[in-house]
């Protein structure tokens, strides 16, 4: 035992005698974590958040959250002598006069963009693999709340430098608050301490940005991770992986080295970005004043979809009896985002209600095995991406020589047409993949090996699946669930079913959910199919020779099909009593 270890052991004992920490270590150091690249999306979010906290702390040491007007006298000549808020002047000082200040600002901003992106993509991974299902519904809700907090953190930070771009964003935010019926005007006056821009808002949003939101995020991230710890991580299907175990690497040493190492990698990439790639050059945009604007004023990426919605919305407004309702602002900026986030938070419960699936799920779904869910996801993504186009329509117009009016009109139509098309298309693709999986289970995979038969014809040999692929495809057998039965309107005793309507709706939706699913073969069929494939050309060749001679049916990939019939040769063979 080295000296360091002796000291460590001594410290460990000291702490254990006071907290009983060794009991925790005993259980934890060998805790198993499954390994998959997509499981690191959440880690990226966590690590970039840590970088944000670190760099942000430094920035607070130099930044002055004040809207008092000062005359800039720093070292950036093209703004020398210009009147500006102290907030903007101190942001310029951070960029030009504090050594390394610009690096910290750029790291902070890049890390923020990465943070929200990682949270979003992590959420997509959870969604498409069904990782939100029982018992992880709470953690999904926490995740959705974290996403909204991340948007709030990002927007409040975007507003702090008080440059022309951020001030324009605040002006828009103020317009949105003002458009909320009944309370909007008062709300805006309370938030801004009066009229726009006032002299209070920067210091107010500063405390929100550095205290309230990060505090909430930190608390929720802790709960989020504790839940992952208690419930253990989900895993993708594979050999030896079941719903009742977790296969991977132990915390000590492999996972610790990998996760710890990844933290430094994310940190390193963010630092490199901060040094190499400019972000938000506030000195170009100039100080904020409410009567200036720059063409191409955009929000950061995660607000882009909201801006897109604002841009695409038709100009509806109702003014009757002395009041005004600005549907053109209220719907896209308040109602729809509210509905979207609520629907997102409730999704696990909606899906569980429709499928009637009350089992625990620790094995992840392959997206193809839940076609409706996958289709809903792609449909939503399509909607989201179209809104992105809306948010950047002026840049897109100038870059691709288009008219902003044409883009807006395209979006007004496309937002209703393309997402449903994406739904149908995705579902078809999923079902096609299911069919392919079924074929693989029943007949093995197409090996690409061509055999020449004695009579001169070429056939492709099918081979049994390897352990890993078979385990992955077979995982569906463990998760499949039957649609809910139609309820009876009256029970056996003739008493009317009080919940009949609701239950009927549930059963109908359940049918829609499971409609068109390609039935998975039974275990016996799979065994037979794989066994058959294992014989390869030996068993295919004579069968084929017969068929060829007798009926000249089309033949692909060693599997015999009668035209117009979906059945495979094995099924046909069975139908015909074992011989052709």
């Amino acid at each position, binding site marked *: 035992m080295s000296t360091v270890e002796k000291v460590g052991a001594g410290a460990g004992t000291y702490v254990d005698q006071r907290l009983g920490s060794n009991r925790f270590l005993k259980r934890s150091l060998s805790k198993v974590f499954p390994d998959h690249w997509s499981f690191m999306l959440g880690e990226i979010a966590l690590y970039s958040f840590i970088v944000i906290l670190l760099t942000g702390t430094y920035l607070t040491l130099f930044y002055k959250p004040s809207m008092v007007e000062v005359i800039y006298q720093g070292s950036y000549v093209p703004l020398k002598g210009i009147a500006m808020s102290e907030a903007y002047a101190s942001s310029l000082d951070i960029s030009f006069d504090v050594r390394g200040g610009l690096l910290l600002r750029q790291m902070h901003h890049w890390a923020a963009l990465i943070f929200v992106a990682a949270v979003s993509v992590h959420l997509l991974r959870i969604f498409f693999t069904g990782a939100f299902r029982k018992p992880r519904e709470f953690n999904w809700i926490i995740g959705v709340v974290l996403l909204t907090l991340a948007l709030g953190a990002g927007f409040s930070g975007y507003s702090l430098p008080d440059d022309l771009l951020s001030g324009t964003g605040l002006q828009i935010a103020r317009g949105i608050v003002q458009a909320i*019926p009944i309370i*909007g005007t008062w709300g805006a006056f*309370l938030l801004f301490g009066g009229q726009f821009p006032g002299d209070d808002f920067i210091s107010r949003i500063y405390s929100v940005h550095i205290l309230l939101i990060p505090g909430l995020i930190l608390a929720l991230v802790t709960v989020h991770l504790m839940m992952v710890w208690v419930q253990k991580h989900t895993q993708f299907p594979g050999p030896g992986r079941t719903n009742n175990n977790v296969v991977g690497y132990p915390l000590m040493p492999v996972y610790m080295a990998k996760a710890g190492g990844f933290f430094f990698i994310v940190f390193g990439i963010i630092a490199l970005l901060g040094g190499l790639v400019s972000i938000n050059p506030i000195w170009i945009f100039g100080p904020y004043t409410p009567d200036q604007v720059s063409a191409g004023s955009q929000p950061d990426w995660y607000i882009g979809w909201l801006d897109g919605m604002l841009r695409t919305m*038709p100009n509806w407004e109702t003014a009757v009896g*002395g009041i005004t309702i600005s549907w053109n602002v209220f719907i896209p900026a308040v109602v729809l985002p509210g509905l979207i986030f609520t629907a997102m938070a409730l999704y696990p419960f909606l899906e569980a209600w429709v499928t009637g699936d009350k089992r625990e799920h620790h094995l992840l779904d392959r997206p193809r095995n839940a076609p409706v869910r996958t289709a809903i996801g792609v449909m939503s993504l399509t909607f989201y991406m179209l809104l992105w186009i809306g948010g950047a329509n002026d840049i897109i117009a100038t870059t691709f020589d288009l008219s902003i009016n044409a883009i807006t009109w395209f979006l007004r139509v496309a937002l209703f047409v393309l997402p449903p098309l994406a739904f149908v298309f995705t579902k078809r693709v999923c079902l096609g993949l299911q069919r392919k999986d079924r074929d693989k289970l029943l007949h093995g995979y197409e090996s690409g090996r061509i055999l020449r038969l004695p009579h001169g014809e070429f056939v492709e040999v099918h081979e049994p699946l390897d352990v890993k692929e078979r385990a992955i495809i077979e995982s569906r057998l463990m998760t499949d669930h039957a649609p809910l039965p139609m309820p009876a309107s009256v029970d056996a005793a003739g008493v009317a079913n009080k919940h009949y309507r609701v239950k009927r709706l549930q059963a109908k939706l359940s049918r829609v959910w499971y409609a068109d699913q390609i039935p998975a073969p039974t275990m016996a069929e799979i065994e037979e199919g794989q066994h058959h494939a294992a014989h390869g050309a030996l068993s295919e060749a004579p069968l084929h020779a017969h068929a060829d001679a007798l009926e000249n049916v089309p033949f692909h990939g060693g599997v015999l099909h009668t035209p117009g019939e979906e059945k495979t040769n094995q099924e046909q063979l069975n139908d015909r009593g074992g011989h052709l």
Partner: protein
Amino acid sequence: MTDVNTHEHSDHPVTSGRLPVADVPHKPRRTDVDPKAARRAERQVAGMFTLSVLFVILFVVAYVAIPKDANVYIPVLGLVGAMNLALGVTMGAAVFLIGAGAIQWAKKLMPDVEVVQERHELASEPADTAEAVDQYERGKEESGFAGYKIIRRSLLGALALFPIPLIVLLRDLWVQPTDTPNPQAELETTIWRKGSRIVVDGSYAPVKASDLPVGGLISAVPENMMEVQEEEHTLNARGKAAILVVRMQPDEIRSQQGENWDYQGILAYSKICTHVGCPISLYEQRTHHLLCPCHQSTFDLADSGNVIFGPAARRMPQLPIGVDEEGYLVALADFAEPVGPSFWERG
């Protein structure tokens, strides 16, 4: 680190205390079977950690040695700030190498056999649940929460109301000026008055009608803009009073918001968008269209400032103008309708 090679990489390593996965054939890595490869991996990892130290030293050197305003030309990046580049690259490399070394270590030298851990039922044992329910019932009984109806109700009432002070305290987020009955009153007026001279934003010089050619555009404010601004210490007045002044041929004006609100083809409109308040001055002098760069609402200044495209619902408010005895452009009155985004009480 040197004794890594003595690890037995059988299919059943004992390192983790858990069973490995049964049916996955384990293929040993090169570092498991070839001591040379293992030593190479060891050197790689140690090399990365050492390089990281080097980059930290370089970071400090760069911090001290590079002047703040030095620029350096780098292919692909262009002419960039030398200090930011050097600090970012050295710090990034130092941190990145720690991570890369740790991961290389884990991948090449730590066991790569996956192990299995059983999951346990998350739901509590029925006996535990029953005990918890008992505890709760006992507590309920002992406290009399169920029995003392008045206590229960008054407590609930008290708990429901205790946040009220916290909400009331937010009222003075806006310290309401004594002469302002409600927010609406502040939104409905600007500092434009009858006779306010129109001055150019930036130079604050008054404008003669003859100075503005057809097709011309001026971003303008009232003459007392700077005084008000200095008095109020905010940009609030500017946020409502900013206007743009354009001139077109009088016969090109199809309509305006009041009779003769132009002066010989010179029109003044608010600069603040009626959608959500972006300042607009993207004025196309040929079409007389005014475009908002934020959400692309388009207004026709030759036709009362009406909305012709985009999400804005209200026309751009027009400022009636004329000239004073010296021939300078002046406002004839304040705006007849509130400028900027709509609000509930606007009507």
